[in-house]
């Protein structure tokens, strides 16, 4: 059982406050949607939690440990996993080797064990052709590889940043099933960023809505969708 | 924008304070410092222009200066003219040489990773210096001119005055470049390209042409400087190498895209070098202090930009 909690988490880039006093928490077994218009600060929130940025103020707690100042690679080892909105596969490595990195470094396994575990993981994701270069795989396979890379770090908390974007509807349904199944099997805490509300309703238990860096609403999607502030944020954001 | 101004002011006032202190203790240090600063600034400005607009570190920068100096040398000895006159044809030839170098090689790596550009221009540098070595041998060459030894005495301090031509030249380069970038159509377009190449392309500016012109223009300035360089210093194929590093360091100190600050950075370095050289046995160590300073400045800058 794990819990991730942010406390007044704030970051400013020059004059722009991209994350503004965000208090957010997520527990094992929960799937929380993180929604909001473009530029709301969803990706920035993930980057803060993963340690790509350090907060201007505020704290991040993973089970009673303040992780807000420790470097990204250590957070990965502690159990923060994430995918990337803009996917940058490691082009110099094969698909299998891409997946192996998390086992090798976050989980500190040896080469042989990492290779076996990566194969096993890919099998559960139905990802095949593992010796191909990353340039040779299709979009669904790329997304699966991305999820596999996050899972390879053995996360307690995992963030998926628009993994469904670019998939067609059948592929999206497949991806939703995979995420649900893995989250349940591993008792993960999952944060899901998506723009397609159909995905959010099918996948998540509750959502938070970000707008200009602030949480403007939280709760089950059906309730939040009725919220006037949320409606106007989306209208203002042009979605 | 605002920060840039603060740095500029801070840099210039640091140089001023250092100058005043020097003026009181040892006026000659100040004189030589300013003269050195002029040399550094004059050669660093074209690199600042290229880095700010084309976003390329040209590791052949100093070698192009060396080639220009040789060109000027051969023009002077062949036609019997003064290097200061030869600056004009040298500048023109260097414009076209720059054009050729850019079009045939560098332009093809603009979209490639920075690594490729660095290695490529390193290759260009080697071709230039080794070709000159092959053609002109490594024997140092110098043009003897009477007027360079003119000196002046103020109070009981006497010093060479010809070298003040370098700070004047640097100021001239800066003035011309700023006028060009701020007042002319082409210059304004170039500034826009420097700040945001993609945006500039969308607005309909011919980015590739702008890059070519800017690189050629910078080569022309290098050419003019090369002619002035030969009036005072002896040249050999390896003479350019350190100027690439020094120029880069100055541009990094000044902040990429900040031309006026190159003068401030050059003053700090020129004065510091001249100070170290005035200490007994200091002359040999002065480049060391210089490189040490480079590393400190580049590091502190990169830390700041990371935050």
């Amino acid at each position, binding site marked *: 059982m794990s819990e991730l909690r942010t406390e007044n988490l704030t970051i400013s880039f020059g004059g722009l406050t991209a994350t503004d006093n965000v208090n957010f928490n997520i527990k094992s077994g929960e799937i929380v949607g993180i929604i909001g218009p473009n530029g709301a600060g969803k990706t920035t929130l993930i980057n803060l939690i993963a340690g790509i940025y350090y907060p201007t103020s505020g704290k991040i707690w993973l089970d009673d440990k303040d992780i807000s100042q420790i470097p990204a690679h250590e957070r990965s080892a502690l159990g923060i996993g994430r995918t990337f909105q803009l996917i940058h596969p*490691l082009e110099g490595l094969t698909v299998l080797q891409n997946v192996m990195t998390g086992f090798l470094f976050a*989980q500190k396994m040896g080469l042989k064990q990492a290779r076996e575990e990566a194969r096993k993981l890919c099998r559960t994701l139905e990802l095949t052709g593992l010796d191909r270069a990353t340039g040779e795989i299709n979009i669904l396979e790329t997304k699966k590889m991305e999820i596999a890379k996050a899972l390879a770090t053995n996360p307690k908390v995992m963030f998926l940043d628009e993994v469904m974007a670019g998939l067609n509807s059948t592929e999206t349904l497949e991806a939703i099933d995979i995420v649900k199944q893995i989250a349940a099997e591993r008792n993960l805490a999952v944060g899901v960023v998506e723009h397609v509300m159909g995905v959010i309703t099918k996948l998540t238990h509750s959502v938070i809505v970000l707008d200009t860096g602030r949480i403007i609403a939280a709760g089950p999607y059906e309730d939040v969708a009725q919220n006037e502030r949320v409606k106007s944020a989306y209208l203002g954001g042009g979605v | 924008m605002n920060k840039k101004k603060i740095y500029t002011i801070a840099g210039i006032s640091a140089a001023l304070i250092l100058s005043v202190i020097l003026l009181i203790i040892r006026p000659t240090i100040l004189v030589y410092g300013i003269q050195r600063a002029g040399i550094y600034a004059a050669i660093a400005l074209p690199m600042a222009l290229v880095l700010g607009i084309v976003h390329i570190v040209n590791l052949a920068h100093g070698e192009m200066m060396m080639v220009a100096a040789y060109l000027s040398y051969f023009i002077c000895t062949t036609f019997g003219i003064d290097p200061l006159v030869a600056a004009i044809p040298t500048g023109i030839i260097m414009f076209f040489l720059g054009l050729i170098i850019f079009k045939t090689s560098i332009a093809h790596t603009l979209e490639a990773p920075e690594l490729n550009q660095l290695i490529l221009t390193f290759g260009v540098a080697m071709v230039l210096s080794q070709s000159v070595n092959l053609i002109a041998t490594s024997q140092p060459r110098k043009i003897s001119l009477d007027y360079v030894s003119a000196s002046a005495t103020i109070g009981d301090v006497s010093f060479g005055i010809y070298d003040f031509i370098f700070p004047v030249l640097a100021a001239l380069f800066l003035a011309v470049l700023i006028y060009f970038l701020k007042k002319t159509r082409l210059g304004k377009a170039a500034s826009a390209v420097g700040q945001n190449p993609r945006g500039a392309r969308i607005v309909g500016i011919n980015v590739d042409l702008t890059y070519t012109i800017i690189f050629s223009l910078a080569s022309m300035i290098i050419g003019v400087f090369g002619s002035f360089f030969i009036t005072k210093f002896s040249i050999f194929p390896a003479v350019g190498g350190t100027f690439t590093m020094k120029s880069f360091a100055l541009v990094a100190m000044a902040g990429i895209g900040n031309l006026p600050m190159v003068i401030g950075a050059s003053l700090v370095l020129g004065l510091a070098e001249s100070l170290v050289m005035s200490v007994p046995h200091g002359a040999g160590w002065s480049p060391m202090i210089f490189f040490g300073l480079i590393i400190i400045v580049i590091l502190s800058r990169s830390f700041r930009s990371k935050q």
Partner: protein
Amino acid sequence: MNSTVQKNKTWPVIFGILGVIVMILPFFSGPYIQSIGRTVITYMILAISWDMLIRSGQLSFGLAGFFGLGSYAAVLSAVNLHFNPFISIVFAALVAGLIAFLVGAVVLRLRGMYFAITTLALGEIFRIIIHNWTSLTGGPNGKLLPKLAFDGASIPTYAMMVLFALIIIALSEYFKRSRIHYALTAIRDNEIVAKSSGINIYKYLLIAFTVTAAIQGAAGAGFAQLYGFVTPESSFNANYTLIPLAMTLLGGMYSTWGPVIGAVLLGVLGEFLKLYIPYGHLVVYGIIIILVLLFMPWGIVGMAGRLLKKGESHE
């Protein structure tokens, strides 16, 4: 630089075996060929070391600096501490590695052009210190070794260099096959992704920088032991950066065999050209750097791999 994942392992191995055969041939010829062989191997070692670092995406122009440092460390330790030639080479590797470790702790925060130019400046700093520290280093005149390794006998010194090359090739292959390969490749491709997979970027860069500097130092020491003297101008010569770079680019980056092949080809070509146009070979190296970058950035090994792949997909 676009990298391809090398799936086909046969070509590099064939190239490698050819390279090793070329290294063995000089044993059966005269001292002149062996002396060329020693020079080529020195550059080969430098080329491999440069490649080992560029695999992490970090471009170092500091080869000549660490090479010179190693040369001096070897000669000074032999003169002042009476180290035997082999211990002096190991000592030089340690000195270069230690200095790289200390300097790297700061410099490895830099990337791209800042890192590249700082390494160039570092080499210059080493040279200036050595040049000016006359009491220890002999200043501009340099130092002489009292006694050469194997008294300068041709075959044993060549054998020593071949052994040295084999050790470095093995080390480079270890880098390619161990977890270091995964870390360095990930760092080159995307640092943020690398971090998110738990890779301690700084640690792996420091390992690569220290090890490659130690190799460069050892190469310098080996060279000093062969020729018996050091001077600031000759030991820190920019050619020790230029030539290995050209060799690696021609042979192909991101592999062990690329630098090996590049070194053999360019080394032999260079020695040949030297006879006809002294210094002309250096122009050729520069031109090769430019041409390779413009027309075949993946080098000979990479191109062979690609051709092979094309052939496969047509079958």
